[in-house]
């Protein structure tokens, strides 16, 4: 398998005087893998995810996704990279309140230049496959936590990204919805979707990741999965 994501000697400082959030981290994620990054709060796992997503830049080192060195990209190029190459699922969903579930899903597709009709068709397919066909016209405020997270997953997948990033995807939903999300991620990975997951939920990591790495005080350590 080829490395789809590669972090090489990546360091990230938020304050020049303080300790680094990530300290000379190396990580690779092969295409089709589901890697879970685990660690306590403040360990640097979300920072790692942000760097891979191009939402932030490393202080030093190199972040390569699908052969593209993200460090060298402009903000506009990074935005385009996020649009088409990456889908992100957040802990708190980050759905836009004034858009319906369908409109939220359509949004990245439209930003990527897909026609409205094609985008709506793709959104309806995704929502249908995630069991949300009847909720497509609902606004986020009317959806349950689990439903919101599934809408967020649909939004992340609308542009058929080769990499799905998930940041504590079960952190803001109840146990039943958490299990649904876990099964969804596992199914996606089994279907070939590359997944990089950040969580402190061991059950989620075990349930859907093919490989687990621990991050603590900015350092990574590979864990052998059972």
């Amino acid at each position, binding site marked *: 398998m080829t490395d789809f994501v590669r972090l090489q000697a990546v360091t990230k400082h938020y304050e020049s005087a303080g300790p680094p959030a990530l300290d000379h981290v190396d990580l690779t994620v092969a295409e089709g893998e589901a890697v879970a990054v685990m660690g306590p709060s403040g360990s640097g796992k979300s920072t790692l995810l*942000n760097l891979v997503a191009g*939402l932030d830049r490393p202080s030093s080192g190199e972040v390569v996704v699908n052969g593209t060195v993200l460090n060298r990209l402009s903000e*506009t190029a990074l935005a385009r990279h996020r649009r088409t190459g990456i889908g992100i699922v*957040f802990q708190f969903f980050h759905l836009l*309140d004034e*858009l319906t579930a369908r409109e939220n899903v359509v*949004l990245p597709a439209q*930003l990527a230049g897909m026609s*409205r009709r094609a985008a709506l068709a793709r959104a309806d397919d995704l929502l249908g496959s995630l069991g949300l066909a009847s909720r497509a016209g609902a606004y986020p405020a009317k959806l349950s936590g689990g439903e919101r997270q599934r809408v967020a997953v649909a*939004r992340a997948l609308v542009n058929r990204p080769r990499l799905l990033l998930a940041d504590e995807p079960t952190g803001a939903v109840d146990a039943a919805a958490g299990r649904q999300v876990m099964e969804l991620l596992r199914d996606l990975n089994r279907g070939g979707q590359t997944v990089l997951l950040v969580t402190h939920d061991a059950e989620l990591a075990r349930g859907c990741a093919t490989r687990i790495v621990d991050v603590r005080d900015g350092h990574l350590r590979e864990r052998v999965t059972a």
Partner: protein
Amino acid sequence: MRAVLRAAAAAVRRRRMQSLVVGAVVLLSAATGVLALGLMIASSAPFDAAFARQNGAHAAVTFEGGGEELAASAERTGVTGAAGPFRTVDAALGGEHGDRPPGPVVGRADADTTVDRLEVTGGAWLTGPGQIVLSRDTAGRGRMEWKVGDTVTVGDRARLTVVGIASSATSTAAAWVWPGQDDVLTGDHRQMLYRFADPADPDAAVDRVTAGLPGVGSTTWLAVRTEVEGVIRTFVPFVVAFAVLGLLLSVLIVVNVVAGAVVAGFRTIGVQKSLGFTPAQITAIYCGQVLIVCVPAGLLGVAIGHLAAVPLLRQTSDAYQVTGAPSVPLTVDALVLAGVVLLVTLAAAGPALRAGRLSAVRAITVGRAPTGDRGVRIRRALAALPLPRAIGFGLGTPFARPARSAVTVVAVLLGVTTVVFATGLAASLTRVASMGSRLDAVPVRVGMHPAGPRPQGWAPGTADTAAVRKIIEAQPGTTHVAGETEQDTTMIGYTEPLAVRAYQGDASWAGYPLLRGRWYTGATEAVAGSRMLALTGTEVGDTITLGTGQKVTIVGQVFSNGSDATILMDMAGLPGVTPQIFDVGLAPGTDHRAYIEQLRSALTGLEADAQLSAETQENEVVAVMIGLIATLTVLLTTVAGLGVLNTVMLTTRERVHEIGVLKSVGMTPGQVRVLVLSSVTVIGLVGGALAVPLGFALHGWALPVMAGSAGLVLPQSILDVYEPWTLVALGACGIVLAALGALVPGSWAARARASAALRAE
């Protein structure tokens, strides 16, 4: 208290941009406030002080003949005081230090009369015949000044010794002689000086008091004050308008800044309350952060306004020999500073009180983002429109905070109103200058003097005007020629000089817009400039008597922007006068420069010099006004733009999380800029659309008031300066202003790191 001050100072440091905006707008308001109020009060202060000190005459009325009944008129209803009758004559004075134009010479034994108590500023008052006391203006200044002890000739009839210099607040005479000075006081004119119970309408009072008496003319205190104030008063209306716009902007921006600071500081407020700050202390913190900025800015603004008024006020103080530099009274400075500080404190008080009343728990738990679902339906509707996503989101933004958006609309409205008003004002003033200089009608003038420096011993009037006229008329391209001369004379009853511009030949083409009546025909008719009618109280149809004794009927009113009372008449009415200049009208399409070259060549050997009018005409007052208007407009629109910037920055910071989400799903920095700029489009559009009628109305109000202050009536063409396309373009300035204000926040949002934005709550 120290904790409150520290917290307020910290807030100022934290919100540097907002503090800068508040400081700028307060400075500007204070400066224009001092300028407006200062000009209004200080322009008439020297006159008002002298008038009160001297118990000045509300009217100086000249009668032809009359005896006991003139003195008895002092008992008539409405008269509270009177002096006279004094014998008077209009006469020119001459002497070693030059000649003076004709003016009223009054026979008066006492300086210290109950009305018009003259102040003898040099020498002494008259003690008998053979003496003369000169007014300050008549005495002159510099090398031409007549001093006590000099001998002057009055109307070629008498040689008198100057014994004193005196001043009359209402300029009731050019000079005073002993009442028995019969060789000077020829004729049968008498002067009465009145004070009225109701001085606000002195013309009506004069009519009542002189009913049945042989009155031939009068000068009122209002006319003299207008004359003394000169053009300063014309600055007042537009400076007041700018000051009011500035103050409104101050209030709006302060409300917005403090309200924004309160919303942005909810958590801080909660923490402060949990630490033991009382509601009053919280309120004081938010008022304090405005006061810390506004007091020094107000002081600086007052100082700037104070200094800016000095050159404008110099001319009125010169008229009254006020010692030292003229300036705005310190009470005005204090009043404006107090007013501005009070106003912004009150503006800050509303949101500051809200901060004080906020419950600690709510303050800590409520985030910065707009709460509830304000405008959600509209935002959803706009987001669903088939528009690029960034635009759809942007258009919906103002509905999330309708109150703040409304305030921003008003900021844009005030900014664009300023632009509309200033554009119209500048266009009108340019037309005033152009019309006053008559450049279009009279592009060429031929002076009856040799070109270049005057030769030794040269005197005017030696050139062969008939020959010059013939040459001009024969020149290809010439359509009109009129000989012109101007001289100061007097008008019986009017104590100030009257400028007579006399024309040889038809001059109705010479660029004087006729406002009322008709052009003069013959030597006994004249048309008058609006200022002459305003200053002398004359109406079209009235017959006036010139100092020469000639009676002239005013048959029309023309626009003339000169500062003197002027009439235009036929040169035939002034015997012995020849043209000093020829006004020349040219056929359309004539090359002015080529024409001048040919004419100069044709005039070789004659004492005449042809020049383009544009090279000889300039209007300094209009230039100063346009400069001031441009400066104030740039400052006010900048402040309005800063107001928009402040609001958009607040809103953008509040929406930073949403922007982070959009960035995370692929919105580019360019699209984020479009989003932010779109968010102010509706605001700019509405503000601009509302500003156009407001600015239009302000122009329609201010210009006639300015003209009225200068004693002018404006032709409609000077008011009609707005073309439909201009108004549309000016309305579009709202979008431009709003967009300019949104540029910085837009760039900030575009640059904001998505990861940081997503962390923001």
